[in-house]
């Protein structure tokens, strides 16, 4: 099979889907030995200047409209109520600090987390429980989902904007959760991804 034919197949599969597809899933539909990575790179190249672009998100591939056309297509999202400032901040803390416990989020923000906020973020499928901390009380830890990556157009958590700077400044070091008791030394806690919540897609 010619390369062009293989590209057409990858193109058709990706175009037909409204969700990102992994290169493995795509390769399943190609003849054995097809160089899927090369095909994807070529296809991305071919669409680079079009109204639709091929992007890599959450380690998978999908077509989406070109970012510079957002002004034409932008929609005030109806169902998703606008996130409160508290929810946005909580989401940011969870995404940059993950895995992170509720108490740690509260520590960073300096205020207790009102009940609905985590619910909203989990309902939007941006945040999910990841496991439990191996500390007294075995608190649940939270992190972001693949859906979060797809929504914000990130290939992985490592691509979060400003991550390196935050890290370099020491802002992502272990959070001392003995809040308002700044006398204690922060003790590094070890994450134990027990009780992995269904690793799902």
């Amino acid at each position: 099979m010619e390369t062009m034919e293989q590209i057409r197949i990858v193109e058709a599969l990706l175009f037909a889907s409204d969700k990102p597809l992994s290169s493995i899933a795509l390769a399943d539909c190609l003849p054995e030995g097809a160089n899927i990575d090369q095909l994807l790179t070529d296809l991305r190249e071919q669409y680079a200047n079009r109204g639709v672009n091929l992007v890599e998100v959450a380690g998978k591939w999908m077509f989406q409209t070109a970012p510079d056309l957002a002004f034409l297509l932008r929609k005030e999202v109806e169902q998703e109520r606008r996130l409160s400032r508290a929810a946005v901040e909580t989401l940011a803390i969870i995404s940059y600090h993950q895995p992170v416990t509720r108490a740690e989020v509260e520590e960073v923000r300096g205020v207790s987390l009102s009940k609905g906020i985590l619910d909203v973020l989990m309902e939007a499928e941006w945040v999910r429980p990841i496991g439990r901390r191996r500390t007294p009380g075995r608190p649940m830890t939270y992190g972001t989902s693949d859906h979060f990556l797809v929504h914000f157009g990130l290939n992985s958590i490592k691509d979060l904007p400003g991550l390196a700077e935050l890290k370099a400044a020491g802002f992502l070091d272990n959070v001392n959760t003995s809040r308002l008791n700044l006398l204690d030394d922060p003790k590094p806690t070890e994450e134990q991804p027990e009780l992995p919540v269904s690793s799902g897609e």
Partner: protein
Amino acid sequence: MNTKEPEQQSAFEEQASVILSPDDEERLILDIDGFEGPLDVLLTLARTQKVDLKQISILELVQQFLKFVDDAKVQKLEKAADYLVMAAWLAYLKSRLLLPEETSEDELSAEEMAARLTHQLQRLSAIRDASATLMSRNQLKRDVFARGMPEPVIVTKNATYELSLYELLRGYADHKTRKSIADIRIHKREVYTLDQALERLRGLIGIAVDWTDLFQFLPDSIEGDDMTRSVKASLFTASLEMAREGKAEIVQKQTFGPLYIRKKDRSD
């Protein structure tokens, strides 16, 4: 560490004296409702010092915060719980900063406590900037869009039934085929029966005097080739029947020639 304390202490005081300005304090008429907790208030207050967060005067910040809580707690004591705890801690910090430090192996120095608070404020500030950056990214379904009509529709009701155009046409053609066979069975041809022909012939043959062409007796009302053929056949059969009964005579002078018929009255 202990030996450095006096220096650090003075550094804070210096800082405080430089930055403290009555204007700033007066401008800050604050309400708890607008804030996301005591750290948020501290961050806001720290920003009024108009310096890099690393350079803020902790002493001034403490005083600003204590004043803020004093003003606010009258109105909203319940909500102020977090703020009161913070106020108490800051008051403690303030006393540590102002008084000569006791040496202690277990506790952090006042300087370290202040540095930690500064760090916390910087961290909150940084995460806020990060969250703003995150939210300003192009978001799916808001700024960029996936395929609006995905084709491997798994959940959509529309696609529950599968039918190709071929099958649709095949269905219509099959229907037509069956229908056309049914038509042949159902549409019986109209015929002129033998009984009808006999009745007609018996009635007319008496009127005619001499030999008459059989087909002179064809009814006027018949239409269509099929019916004409049927009438001719029935009249012919009827004429044979009457001849057999001895009520008529038939003559044909040549092959395929006209048939002549006349009444035969036996009673004569």
